[in-house]
């Protein structure tokens, strides 16, 4: 036990490495300004509401998954996008899920997988029933295979 508590283990050794590899070196940064990202997230939220009002779930999902915010300094935009997305998932009938997922582009399917895992990682699962996220996860995996889960795990562009 004592070995684990020795103070030297808490030293940030990367500080002494001239050529340290940082997280942001591992992916291309979002070219958009954080305030612009936030603005876009709000606009999408509104667009999604109107799509949902028309009962067009596929369109709503497409809107919210396009240009999803990632990287540092856009936490608010990420939260808005997640809650918008969870609204869509929650309001979709179980029988429609497969058709909706199939209508998405492969990129959007991979992004959806990231959000499903993000939703499941939240305390209280983002206030929606666990069976909703698990149901979407099951249907999505049937279409994309486990490859999509692998991509959600490896991608550093965390949503």
């Amino acid at each position, binding site marked *: 036990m004592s070995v684990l508590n020795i103070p030297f283990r808490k030293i940030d050794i990367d500080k002494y490495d001239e050529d340290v590899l940082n997280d942001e070196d591992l*992916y291309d940064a979002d070219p958009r300004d954080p305030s612009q990202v936030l603005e876009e997230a709000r606009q999408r939220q509104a667009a999604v509401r109107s799509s949902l009002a028309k009962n067009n779930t596929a369109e709503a999902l497409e809107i919210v998954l396009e240009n999803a915010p990632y990287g540092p300094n856009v936490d608010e935009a990420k939260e808005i996008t997640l809650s918008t997305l969870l609204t869509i998932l929650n309001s979709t009938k179980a029988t429609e899920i497969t058709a909706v997922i199939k209508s998405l582009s492969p990129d959007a399917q991979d992004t959806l997988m990231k959000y499903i895992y993000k939703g499941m990682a939240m305390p209280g699962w983002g206030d929606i029933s666990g069976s909703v996220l698990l149901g979407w996860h099951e249907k999505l995996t*049937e279409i*994309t*295979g*486990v490859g*999509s889960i692998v991509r959600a795990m*490896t991608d550093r562009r965390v949503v």
Partner: protein
Amino acid sequence: MPPEIFTLAQTPITAHAFNADRQELAVSLNSNEVQLYSRKGQEWIPTETLSEHDKLITSIDWAPNSNRIVTASQDRNAYVWTETPDPETGKLIWKPTLVLLRINRAATHVRWSPLENKFAVASGARTIAVCSFDEESNWWVAKHLKKPIRSTVLSVDWHPNNVLLAAGSADMKARVFSGYIKEVDERPAPSVWGSKLPFNTICGEYSSPAGGWVHTVGFSPSGDVLAFASHDSSITIVYPGGPTVYTVRLPTLPLVTLSWTSEESIVAAGHDCRPLVYAGSEQGWQEVGTLDDASSSKASEGSRSGFGSSGGVGRLKAGAFATFRDADSRGQNTGSVSSDTKLNTIHQNTITSIRPYDIEGGYVARVSTSGVDGTLVIWDTNEVSALTARMGGVRI
């Protein structure tokens, strides 16, 4: 012809390489020694053991014309082995020559250049050591490709012009470098990768599509196209002109090794334990099937009823589902059924290396694979069978 299957060991095979006439084989059985085998009919008979490395041997390459073996190891060394007569007995023995790699982390991958006068060693030191022979001092010296590599280099592959080198790295990038060494190389002809090529020129840099380590890279036979597979379950093909980049997403677990079989086809394999075939051209690429025709192996069809239709799910879900279903509805503990752990692929674990075996006029008619299951398989690249119908129930 059906695949030839050789179970060499119960331990993983970390690397394998054949000699020119394919009658001899060098493997690393997850240890610090190279085991040599000789082919006798349908069997591989162990012959010699090459011991010089202190730690795990990560990669082996056997130069077909000069008949030299190069080995790379986690002990940060590489050795070039030459078959020479023993001064006392006159018997041929393999003699190691140390290579001055000057790296401070493990060597991960090694490949001879096409002319066999150089080899490249990838390493964990964010470096590729391009080694050539120094006649004066009678040893192999290294020049380092360093910039702009930010992490461990996992694989290298030579361009047919003996100068350009592709490298896949854990910083999520595949790159094409110039490995031009003035003392040994003639000035290369201009190609799609560029015309002026001093050492360490970056001729191309490509990111993996969803942030996965680039496990494997390969130039097409002409050298004009680059393919790489990454840990985000995807394979990417690059035509450097535009550049035009095609990414094929896999429904399955990631690929870790690939081999071009012609200018329009690639065989790749990895954690899904079966070699997949990709075909395409500058107009696009797609998966066309697998070399592992699972229906010919000992698979029992009945136990995966109801899963065939969902295509592309991969083995994880079906296997786990069957376990829980049996435990729940039938009170069966499938853990006690021995067939449950048997995959219906030929390789029973991850395939870590795939190499051209039989080349006929620029076209690879057969490839060899080895993997964590200690098995070596030689496949006919024409025996491609469709994949979709079987994806749902890979595990029985």
